[in-house]
């Protein structure tokens, strides 16, 4: 799931400077689950901002509204009418949600209140670990379920660099395990070391275009 974290309050305050009536839109999807931008976090941020506005004797005011998911236009049905009373939008959704809000309400400025950090897993309450960079070319089947793009500091696709130290740690820090060392160990444990020899084509980072995903059963419907 997409993981995000709230931006520093000063940055948020600075972005909405100059707008009198602000609507903070929360997201009931990933942001809510990772405790960064659900209804609870919207209320908390608004209380903090309103306190700061009051302290500065300013006339700024922020209200909140949380929708089911900000990455799907069908959940925006209430907002056009509500937004008539507001000058700008603060969004607590991930980057995708912010962009959809900006696309739908193109006449209103939309500012993000969270930083989209990763696609990750829940390690514990409020603790998440990145596991995927959404590179669009998954090699986990050959790498024993360990992502070299995410785990390797250089995102190497075909084996380690020369910087792995003797203890199986990365050259950038002795605290960080080398992804390729771990891949080797796990493949060995599973008797699949042959997989490590299969050369993966390099990532086509250049000339990339914005990706659209259509699931196979829906290609009939949308594909041209």
């Amino acid at each position, binding site marked *: 799931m997409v993981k995000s974290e709230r931006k520093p309050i000063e940055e948020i305050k600075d972005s909405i400077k100059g707008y009198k009536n602000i609507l903070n839109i929360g997201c009931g999807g990933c942001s809510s689950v990772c405790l960064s931008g659900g209804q*609870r976090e919207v*209320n*908390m941020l608004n*209380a*903090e901002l309103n*306190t700061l506005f009051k302290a500065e004797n300013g006339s700024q005011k922020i209200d909140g509204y949380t929708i089911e998911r900000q990455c799907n236009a069908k959940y925006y049905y209430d907002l056009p009418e509500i937004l008539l009373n507001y000058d700008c939008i603060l969004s607590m959704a991930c980057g995708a949600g912010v962009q959809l809000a900006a696309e739908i309400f193109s006449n209103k400025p939309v500012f993000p209140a969270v930083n989209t950090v990763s696609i990750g897993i829940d390690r514990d*309450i*409020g*603790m998440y670990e990145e596991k995927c960079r959404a590179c669009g070319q998954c090699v986990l089947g050959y790498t024993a379920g360990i992502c070299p793009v995410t785990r390797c500091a250089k995102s190497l696709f075909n084996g380690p660099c020369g910087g792995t130290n003797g203890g199986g740690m990365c050259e950038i820090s002795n*605290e960080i395990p080398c992804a390729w060392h771990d891949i080797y160990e796990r493949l060995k444990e599973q008797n699949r070391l042959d997989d490590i020899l299969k050369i993966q084509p390099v990532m086509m980072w250049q000339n990339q275009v914005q990706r659209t995903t259509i699931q196979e059963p829906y290609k009939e419907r949308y594909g041209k």
Partner: protein
Amino acid sequence: MEISNIFSSALLYNLARGPLVWISFLVFFAGSIFQILRILSLTKNDERIGIQAKDSKNKKKPAKEKKKEAILSWFQQLKLTIVGVSPIMIIVTTVFHICLFVVPVFLLAHNIMLDDAWGLSIITFSEKTADILTIIFLATALFFLLRRLFVGRVRSITSLYDCFIWIIATAPFLTGFLAYHQMFDYRTVIVLHMLFGELMLIAIPFTKFTHMFFFFIFRFFVKSEYSLGKGNRSWY
């Protein structure tokens, strides 16, 4: 035999003030221990994960620095919780639960029996105080009943079981109040009071009343986004 005669009969009276008291206390204590152990066995203490070494931006800030940076006062933060969202509900439920616990424990009549039986003397409320607290308890219980009947979102999740639980919780107080004020046939009312009290004790470990223990376990020992404190148990 009329129903009032059954409740005022010597047999039921002696049963209610004798063996049933022991049975209900035994079931209450044994059931409560069983439930607490059951919940503890369903959860386990997690090893705390430390990631500071891996990621320095996640370093814990000293309390002093955190306090300095805080924009909201503790009261403003409290207002963001259920206390601020439903203040009346919080006040009523707090009063209800305090009365539910303190009235029977510190009631003069109960403590005289305790003194007579085991020579155990604990502080007691004056009769007038206990009477007022009972009235307050009954008023808050009525609030809950009206809420269940007339607030749509609460009514939609209310079943007969909830009404049954409400009756078990309220009846000992109502009958105790009636007995103290000698309303209706005293013998019948006092037998009903004892029976309802015993029923409540027996019901605590095996019905929704278990929240009496589970509240503290879930909020203080099991970790969740709504934990109060640093409980480190998680579900298997």
